[in-house]
């Protein structure tokens, strides 16, 4: 907008003779009367502040997108034999016609890389939505029992029903929804206050993990091994169906999350303030929760309950964007970058190839300790 729009502020220039209500003598005269110049200076500062923040968001988000794209290509370059970036990109875009190259890139490596990308995006977006909605950095879905609910349902399916693919995704979604509803019923009382939700969430997570352990004891050795591998979390195990489902969900839900971000920013101020500002709080919250639960459930179905990606993505994005900015897209990109990096480390940098979940866990645990220590000290976690 042009700078000239501020020329007509409502405040009169001349000290007005106020139409004072009858009961009292004089209203307290303002100590300072803002002049037009002062208002113009404030207007400039407000606009500069806004532009600064918008520019920072744009720069950070583009840089993250570039980093994710680079990692995506690098993941497909390394392996038992190395490819150049040109070869990978050429094969992806179909500009190089080489069946053996296509076999390695499109056939072997792309599914894993695409899974890491999609799961990372989903976990990052879902984690930051939970954290902002519940106003607590500890409230990521892998910490408060949503992932464990999805995991329990999926393992039950693997062990007892011998299903795979879309059925696993459906079960994981069902488990996540049940876990979310359970927590909603147990913890929601006029909104979420403080650590109540987190404590109940940890309890729910422990309960589901206990049940998962029980299911594993009932399993045959082979199924148990398979289930354990799945539970550790790995991006190399997704079936085609699971990956397609997740990609489809991302294509619909990420834009939806971007739209709902406006409501989320106001919901962060408390339910009363949000309603006062005209947000239909129950509806907005239900929409955001549903988005986050579906994303995390499909991510879990594709790669198992990978820990800590959802927990760290939002805070890292906020560190880059500036406090309380809460960019869902930025958090999703951070999630993808973290997971692609973890997969690179797990499969290629370590002497023995490990499931991705081992690496995210090893990196995430110290962060969680730090988070617990600092939020306790500030008392600002709730």
């Amino acid at each position, binding site marked *: *907008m*042009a700078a000239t*729009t*501020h020329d007509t*502020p*409502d*405040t*009169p220039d001349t000290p*007005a003779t*106020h*139409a*004072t*209500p*009858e*009961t*009292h*003598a*004089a*209203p*307290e005269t*303002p100590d*300072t009367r*803002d002049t037009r110049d*002062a*208002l113009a*200076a*404030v*207007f400039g*500062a*407000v*606009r500069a*502040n*806004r532009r600064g*923040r*918008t520019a920072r968001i744009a720069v950070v988000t583009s840089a993250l997108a570039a980093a994710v794209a680079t990692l995506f290509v690098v993941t497909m370059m390394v392996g038992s034999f190395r490819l150049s970036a040109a070869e990978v990109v050429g094969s992806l875009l179909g500009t190089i016609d080489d069946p053996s190259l296509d076999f390695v890139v499109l056939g072997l490596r792309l599914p894993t890389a695409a899974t890491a990308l999609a799961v990372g995006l989903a976990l990052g977006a879902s984690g930051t939505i939970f954290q*902002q909605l519940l*106003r607590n*950095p500890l409230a990521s879905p892998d910490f408060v029992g949503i992932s464990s609910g999805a995991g329990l349902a999926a393992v039950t399916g693997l062990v007892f029903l011998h299903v795979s693919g879309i059925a696993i995704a459906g079960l994981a979604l069902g488990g996540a929804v049940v876990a979310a509803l359970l927590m909603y019923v147990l913890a929601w009382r006029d909104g979420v206050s403080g650590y109540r939700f987190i404590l109940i969430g940890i309890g729910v997570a422990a309960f589901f993990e206990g049940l998962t352990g029980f299911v594993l004891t009932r399993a045959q050795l082979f199924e148990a091994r398979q289930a354990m591998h799945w539970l550790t979390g790995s991006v190399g195990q997704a079936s085609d169906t699971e990956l397609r489902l997740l990609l489809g969900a991302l294509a619909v839900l990420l834009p939806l999350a971007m*739209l709902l971000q*406006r409501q989320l*920013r*106001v919901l*962060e*101020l*408390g339910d*009363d*303030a949000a*309603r*006062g*500002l*005209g*947000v*239909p709080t129950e509806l907005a919250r239900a929409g955001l929760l549903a988005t986050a639960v579906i994303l995390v459930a499909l991510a879990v179905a594709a790669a198992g309950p990978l820990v800590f990606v959802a927990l760290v993505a939002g805070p890292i994005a*906020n560190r880059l964007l*500036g*406090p*309380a*900015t*809460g960019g869902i897209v930025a958090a999703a990109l951070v999630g993808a970058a973290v997971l692609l990096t973890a997969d690179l480390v797990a499969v290629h940098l370590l002497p023995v190839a490990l499931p991705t979940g081992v690496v995210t866990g090893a990196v995430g645990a110290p962060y969680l300790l730090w988070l617990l220590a600092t939020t306790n000290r500030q008392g*600002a976690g709730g």
Partner: protein
Amino acid sequence: MSRLRAEGLSLGYDDRAVITGLDVSVLDGRITAIVGANACGKSTLLRGLARLLKPREGVVYLDDRALAELSTLDVAKVLGLLPQTPVAPDGITVADLVSRGRYPHQGWFRRWTGRDHEAVTRALAATDTADLIDRPLRALSGGQRQRVWVAMALAQDTDLLLLDEPTTFLDINHQVELLRLLRRLNTESGKTIVAVLHDLNLASRFCDHIIAMAGGAVVAEGSPAEVITAELVEKVFGLSCVIVPDPVAGTPIVVPA
């Protein structure tokens, strides 16, 4: 004339009725204080007027239309609210917080325009918080923080503004500062203001109209001089007292007997 009024209003939480069959009209262009003992229903009334609580019976009218029939977003363009305990995300800056008050004026896709800048500018200038825009909210003093919250409510740019105990937790200096700010907003832009207040002396000094409540009902209503009497204070607060005139403004002051 009254843009905001309630007829036969009954409000409550769960199965507990707090207010039954209450009629009240908010005077346009004036500052109204709702006073009363703890748990007399004053905050409940404010929440009812602000559509945070659905009436069990009766209707709240805004510009002669029932609040329940209006879209909550349309209401938010006319009626602003500062809740008793708003929460702010960790590390949020003043500029960010105040600009969130523009929510009802922004569409799904249309984002930030010159009008939004203007409204935020006016809100910051009016509350004298323009120097603080880059500061994190948690680094501010209690008085500054409360002024920033008022600035957020002002950025909403509404004709009516409801405040739930805006002076609680502030020291006497900041209480007076905040009430002077409300007074100034009212005289400069004719804003209709309703505030739940605890301090009777400050309420009579700074407000045009007082609604005294007890047991979920309005027991007296009128100018401070009419309402604040020894009899009423005894009745509403159970405190026997003497009323003397404020040596500065001549408004009634409650002195415990």
